[in-house]
């Protein structure tokens, strides 16, 4: 990697910075300053109120605790899968690897639906176990509990750990482990003394990211937690959005809470950015690790280590595939007085172009909207992300990590806060955007942009800058070198970033719900609306469409550019 100083070419940074300043930092500051003023004068009263009040202390501690527990659960579930992918061969391994990204782009509402269908007191799993063991009470009280919240977060985020660790593991020179082995270390000691410490930057950077996501999680805590749990985000939502007092006390307390939360999540983002930097410097080119078949025959069932692996596979199939399959099954099922039957009526319902009062439009239009918003948001966020990724990967100056963390600030801000800040700022002239498609697209672009940066930084880092220098020494201008040398080499990574961004946009709900008006519904919003309807199959059918769309996208992408996908 070639480290360079500021120069003329960095003027490119101006435009995306302007975009973020107008549509992210400005509105955010506009919202947060409410927490720092009283009667128009600067004041720390509300910050102090938040930090000294028993209740808010409880909320802040719970937010941290559940994020920590969720992160640990994600590691516990994600690490073995990485191990499995690194060391074993099994059917459809490549497909499994590309599908690990799917849970992450699913809307929270679909995950909550899947969890309720699978783990609810009358869910598939409890009913199955009750039938199996002839129980009168559901044996697994997973829904409406901290366990449920943690598991749902693990469902979302374990894949992040898997992907981060898998990437680190594949780059880890097996000769370290072989040296330890030759020195007499057993598998256990090798893992404890060598592998784990060396994977640690990968694990930690994944964990930092997971922690941020769980810290900011909002719909999962509300729906899977069942209303008895409050995190900083839930509190911001209820204070700022739903508990309205003409004196704006709650509003100001909400803003103060948002500020406290932002400080914590920005701190984690800084930590994450630093670790990413460490991690990038560790790159080594190594020969592929040897793999062995996971299942070699029935006798494997009696080997303790394999047995543990199989049990893990079983648990993860239930946890990861279970909610998804529950949604798919539910979308094809219709309860009837006679018991129930398989049906396609939910699909014919969601693909019908008929007006639906609940949506203010047809369900089909929601599908079109989703695709349109996704494409538009990607078109805006992709060039922005490219420029920022370039800056992060190529330029070095004092305090740069801090700058990186600030660039990634949208990552540290929940979509609720992003949307609410936009709502507060752009509901009046000169720029009245609330209720327009632009508002939704801008919110999506702000929300997905840090993920694009994340996907593209390693792409830029892996590109040998000498190629550009060579092109320029041969007479190409900087832009021409970009167009003819860098872009073709980056194409795979760009495509992966674009697909990922598009999928994230498809799954976004909280902000869309807050900013969109009827006729601007997206698929997840439609799911949310259908859920309040009596017909259960429709939200499942719409969710299934989303699951299939993102799964197909990632499988196709894997065929096209496997390496690019791995970096996501």
């Amino acid at each position, binding site marked *: 990697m070639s480290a360079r100083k500021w120069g003329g070419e960095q003027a490119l940074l101006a435009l995306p910075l302007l975009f973020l300043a107008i549509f992210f930092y400005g509105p955010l500051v506009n919202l947060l300053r409410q927490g720092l003023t009283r009667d128009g004068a600067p004041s720390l009263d509300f910050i102090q109120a938040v930090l000294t009040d028993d209740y808010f202390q409880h909320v802040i501690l719970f937010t941290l605790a559940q994020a920590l527990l969720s992160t640990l659960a994600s590691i516990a579930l994600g690490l073995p899968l990485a191990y499995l992918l690194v060391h074993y061969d099994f059917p459809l391994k490549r497909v499994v690897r590309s599908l690990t990204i799917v849970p992450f782009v699913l809307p929270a509402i679909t995950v909550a639906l899947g969890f309720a269908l699978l783990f609810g007191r009358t869910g598939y799993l409890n009913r199955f176990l009750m039938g199996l063991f002839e129980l009168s009470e559901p044996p697994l*009280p997973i829904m409406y509990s901290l366990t449920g919240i943690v598991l749902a977060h693990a469902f979302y985020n374990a894949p992040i750990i898997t992907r981060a660790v898998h990437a680190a593991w594949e780059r880890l020179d097996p000769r370290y482990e072989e040296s330890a082995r030759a020195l007499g270390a057993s598998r256990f000691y090798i893992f404890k003394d060598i592998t784990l410490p060396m994977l640690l930057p990968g694990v930690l950077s994944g964990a930092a990211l997971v922690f941020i996501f769980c810290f900011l999680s909002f719909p999962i805590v509300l729906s899977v937690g069942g209303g008895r749990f409050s995190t900083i985000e839930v509190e911001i939502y209820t204070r700022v959005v739903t508990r*309205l007092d003409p004196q704006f006390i709650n509003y100001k307390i909400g803003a103060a809470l948002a500020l406290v939360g932002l400080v914590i999540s920005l701190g984690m983002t800084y930590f994450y950015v630093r670790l990413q930097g460490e991690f990038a410097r560790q790159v080594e080119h190594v020969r592929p690790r040897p793999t062995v078949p996971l299942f070699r025959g029935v006798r494997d069932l009696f080997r303790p280590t394999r047995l543990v692996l199989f049990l893990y596979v079983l648990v993860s199939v239930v946890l990861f595939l279970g909610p998804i399959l529950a949604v798919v099954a539910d979308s094809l099922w219709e309860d009837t007085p006679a018991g129930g039957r398989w049906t396609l009526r939910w699909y014919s319902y969601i693909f019908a172009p008929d007006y639906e009062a609940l949506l203010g439009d047809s369900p089909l239009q929601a599908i079109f909207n989703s695709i349109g918003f996704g494409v538009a948001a990607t078109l805006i966020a992709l060039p922005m992300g490219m420029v920022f990724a370039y800056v992060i990967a190529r330029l070095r100056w004092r305090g740069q990590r801090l700058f990186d963390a600030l660039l990634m600030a949208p990552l540290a801000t929940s979509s609720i806060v992003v949307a609410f800040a936009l709502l507060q700022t752009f509901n009046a002239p000169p720029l009245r955007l609330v209720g327009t*498609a632009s508002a939704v697209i801008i919110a999506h672009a702000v929300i997905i942009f840090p993920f694009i940066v994340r996907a593209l930084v390693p792409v830029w880092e892996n590109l040998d800058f000498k190629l550009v220098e060579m092109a320029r020494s041969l007479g190409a201008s900087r832009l021409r070198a970009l167009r003819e040398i860098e872009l073709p080499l980056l194409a795979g990574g760009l495509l992966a970033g674009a697909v990922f961004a598009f999928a994230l946009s498809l799954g976004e709900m909280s902000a869309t719900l807050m900013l969109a008006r009827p006729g601007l519904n997206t698929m997840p919003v439609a799911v949310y609306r259908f859920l309040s309807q009596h017909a259960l199959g429709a939200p499942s059918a719409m969710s299934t469409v989303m699951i299939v769309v993102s799964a197909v996208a990632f499988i196709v992408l894997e065929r096209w550019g496997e390496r690019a996908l791995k970096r996501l």
Partner: protein
Amino acid sequence: MLRRVALVALLSGLVLAWGDSLAQVGEGSKLVVYTYESFVAWGPAKFIKTEFEKQHPGLEVEFVAAGPSRAMFARLVNETISGGTPADLFLGEINDVPRAKKFGLFAPITPQEIPNLQFVPQELLLDPDLTIVPYEHGFITLVYDSTKLQPQELPKTFEDLTKPQYRKKLIVQNALTSSVGQSFLFWTIFNYGDGKYLEYWRRLLPSILTIQPGWSAAYKLFTKGEAPMVVSFSTDACFDARYQPLLLNSQGYRTIFGASVVKSTDNPKLAREFINFLLSVAVQEKLPDTEVMFPANSQAKLPERWRTCAVVPSEPVMIPLNYVAEHADRWLEEWARLVVTGR
């Protein structure tokens, strides 16, 4: 350089413009009605839209129901404060009216403006300024699944409900986002008093399986069989006889839903016509079957079976609105803290 920057800016603008054109709504006169999700999901929204648009050619009625009623109310407030709301009308619950008054959200209405108002009984007209015009009412009670609980197993009082045998048997709504949840909270306050209701809730918490954001979500979990009791309406048996009302302390907490004209509307006259239409017999007679609520218009005929399936509590209760106006903020704050911390 400048040229390129301008080019990219232009492109972004084009992308946004294209995005906007995706879902462009036709120009022309439009009436935007903010309401709660069940009014649209189950209620007469579709019928109202069709009929009212028929009466007013060129007019479009747009229902916005992005959540439970209190969440929609909050949205209205937020929009109004930050620069204006597109809403012309608001359909919601009467307990939010004191709050709306503090923000000055709704325009007062005179009885002459709504001819159909003459058929609405006086007991429903709790707001002297008529910033809310009632169109339906009912009673918040518990509702139980008769296939899961036998009559002798039912709790009869609020105290019974805290017994261990009802552990995780009840689904309630969040008082912060749902008007039904708020009414249930007020009902407990009515019975236990300002001083003791928190202590009651502390004992009630173990009986609660989950606190859902709105009535729709809660009722769906209930009908799915997640718990045998839910906070709902005394008329629910009219929807499905399997779900029977359960009157704690022989009471029901009165809930009144009404329509308000948003002050900033460009169409004050049309908005009032809409409310009058809402009170017309044609719409009112739809309410029992769709909203499963009592119509406000006394001229509207109830379906025959409602004589038996709809229960009117012997003791309808309600905390006076001026008292709500004074204390609701504190109650909601105290309640919210209690359910989260359990203390």
